[in-house]
């Protein structure tokens, strides 16, 4: 569709920040200039006065549940939820059933995404066959099939030798490695953050060191091999500190955190709330502050959701057997905008962490520049609304943010020139 976007604040950090018009034709950005007259072939005019027009948001950490657990989420429902959340692209983690450890599954996910015709889906393939941490997958074929990165997300690669070899091998063929950092032997039974709250609730705790030990190991391996590593879902103050020091030392480490880690603490688990159960767990105020500091000083490159849809069947059970994770696609941008409204982060910084840096880490072209594919998100930074899970486009409702009033959300998502969501 050929779309003319009028009078928006066009913001692509480092490239452009001005009130101007954009014309999209044949799926690409064809003009960026003030006062574009409506071209003859224009099919839609969008008045973006007072709105932000930004490069499409990318959520590089999403769990779609297809194949295998379609009752929680499909590629299509996940892509639609992404569009509603302002994401033009999402990365699908490989822990489906069967696991995305071969080209057939990667191709299947891409085919489902194409059928859905909504936000783009970039498959992340497994590091190890069946996520077992024992044998490498055929990364070359997976890359050819369309995988953009590899990760055993949900499971750590326990063997340091294997992780070293994976990093060396994957770097050689141009695949990013995303690491789920967890030292499983340190807390075999933990179900929430270890601290005062777990003690008073009588729940087995997961100390910060479960994460930070592995963050430090992966930093050491990155230094050893000279290859890049991306650390998923950072939750602990010690991890932020280690990554900050590693970056200062010139080690090629990047990382992400999720909105829940800068919004909530383990207080949210009160009352055995299974919607506040995730892995890594919600931590303390001290950790939340450290995550925010890391976002502000650039230690944390990316905000990604770890969108983890689960049915009520997995959540309306005893806390210790409830599934880990929450949905995030439809609340991520508003929760991140809260940091802007509080004066903690600039809007530029949000766009970098939710669009520019994920694209850079994954090696994607994403920006508001002439002749680039028109992946664009239009944001109303002042629009207030209340989170109503029953209205989610995701198949699942597992969120701790129900009823929360948030300000700032996507009002239009354009993928390859096609509006896939409009409020």
């Amino acid at each position, binding site marked *: 569709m050929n779309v003319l976007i009028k009078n928006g604040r066009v913001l692509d950090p480092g490239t452009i920040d001005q009130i101007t018009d954009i014309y999209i034709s044949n799926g690409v950005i064809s003009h960026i200039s003030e006062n574009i007259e409506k071209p003859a072939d224009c099919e839609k005019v969008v008045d973006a006065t007072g709105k932000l027009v930004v490069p499409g948001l990318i959520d590089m950490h999403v769990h779609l549940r297809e194949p295998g657990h379609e009752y929680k989420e499909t590629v299509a429902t996940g892509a639609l939820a992404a569009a509603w959340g302002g994401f033009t692209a999402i990365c699908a983690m490989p822990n489906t059933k069967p696991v995305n450890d071969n080209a057939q599954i990667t191709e299947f996910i891409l085919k489902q995404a194409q059928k859905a015709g909504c936000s783009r889906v970039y498959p992340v393939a497994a590091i190890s066959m069946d996520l077992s941490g024992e044998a490498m997958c055929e990364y070359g074929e997976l890359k050819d099939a369309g995988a953009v990165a590899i990760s055993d997300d949900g499971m750590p690669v326990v063997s340091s030798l294997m992780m070293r070899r994976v990093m060396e091998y994957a770097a050689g063929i141009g695949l990013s490695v995303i690491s789920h950092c967890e030292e499983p032997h340190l807390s075999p039974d933990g179900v929430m953050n270890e601290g005062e709250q777990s003690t008073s609730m*009588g*729940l087995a705790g997961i100390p910060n060191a479960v994460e930070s030990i592995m963050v430090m190991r992966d930093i050491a391996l990155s230094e050893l091999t000279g290859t890049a590593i991306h650390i998923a879902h950072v939750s602990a103050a010690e991890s932020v500190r280690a990554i900050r020091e590693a970056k200062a030392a010139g080690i090629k480490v990047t990382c992400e955190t999720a909105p829940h880690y800068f919004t909530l603490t383990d207080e949210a688990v009160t009352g*055995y709330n299974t919607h506040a159960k995730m892995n890594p767990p919600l931590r303390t105020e001290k950790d939340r502050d450290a995550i925010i500091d890391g976002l502000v000083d650039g230690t944390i490159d990316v905000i990604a959701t770890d969108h983890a849809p689960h049915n009520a069947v997995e959540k309306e059970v005893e*806390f210790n057997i409830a599934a880990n994770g929450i949905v995030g696609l439809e609340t991520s941008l508003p929760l991140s905008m809260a940091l802007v409204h509080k004066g903690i982060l600039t809007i530029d910084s949000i766009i970098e962490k939710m669009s520019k840096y994920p694209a850079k880490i994954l090696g994607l072209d994403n920006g508001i520049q002439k002749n680039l594919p028109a992946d664009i998100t239009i944001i109303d930074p002042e629009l207030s609304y209340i989170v109503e899970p029953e209205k989610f486009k995701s198949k699942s409702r597992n969120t701790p943010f129900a009823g929360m009033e948030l300000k700032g959300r996507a009002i239009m998502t354009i993928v390859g020139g096609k509006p896939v969501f409009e409020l």
Partner: protein
Amino acid sequence: MNLSNKHILDMTTLTREDIGLILETAESMKEVSERPIKKVPTLRGKTVVLFFHEPSTRTKISFDVAAKRMSADSIGLAASGSSIVKGETLIDTVKNLEAMRPDIVVLRHSAAGAPHMLAKVLEKPAIINAGDGMHAHPTQALLDLMTIKEKKEKIEGLKVSIIGDIQHSRVARSNIIGLNKMGAQVVVSGPGTMIPKGIEKMGARVVIDADEAVKGADVVMMLRIQKERQKGFMFPTEREYARLYGLSPRRLGLAGDDVLVMHPGPINRGVEISPEAADGPWSIILDQVTNGVAVRMAILYLVAGGA
């Protein structure tokens, strides 16, 4: 007078007034168990389900005896005999139980928070927590408070030392909260591996050295070494545990003159407590069991609607 809450979930949700009322009621109930005909008609026509999802002898029998002495109809259900083994969820099982119109559901469960979850989903019956994971065991704490008060004629100002596996103990957690509410000072002691982070915030002073912890104590409460929970390098051997943290006559000698020795049972003789310490005149371990029936009679009575 009535309790401030419909359910008995943990010691946090009981007020000091609730605790006072329960202890007072229990004291008056105790006499029923001393009669030749141990039965009063108070709860005639009330149905009490004893749903014990985790093995228990003492607590289950105590509730059962309490219910029967009050003339309630009590029905016991264990996880192994329930549809849980057929794959039914806990919520579905208890919703089916609720459909049979019980007045009270007593729940013992290995998952912390299980009774709290049921309290949210069940409309009618009151829930009594008979122990949930490592979280709470309020009726045990109440019977302990009753026993201390009976023997010492007060709780306020006493020094109570709880020694053993604090980390895994719901009895310790509930007692720390209950004793604090009633004005006692609580010391916890045990190997560093068994002292959970932040226990001070719940109102306990941590003294790792057991001799120091016992010094001047009015009450020493020993906890069972839960052998089933000791995977994961908690202590080297039972021999060393007994030497460092077990209650021997020598160690007991460091306590106050009228020290009382308590234990929630079942005891591991020769591990956390020596036979001499368990059986001496200071031991009130069996009084705890006797008072358990009275406390549970009082709770069933108050939860069922009281006077």
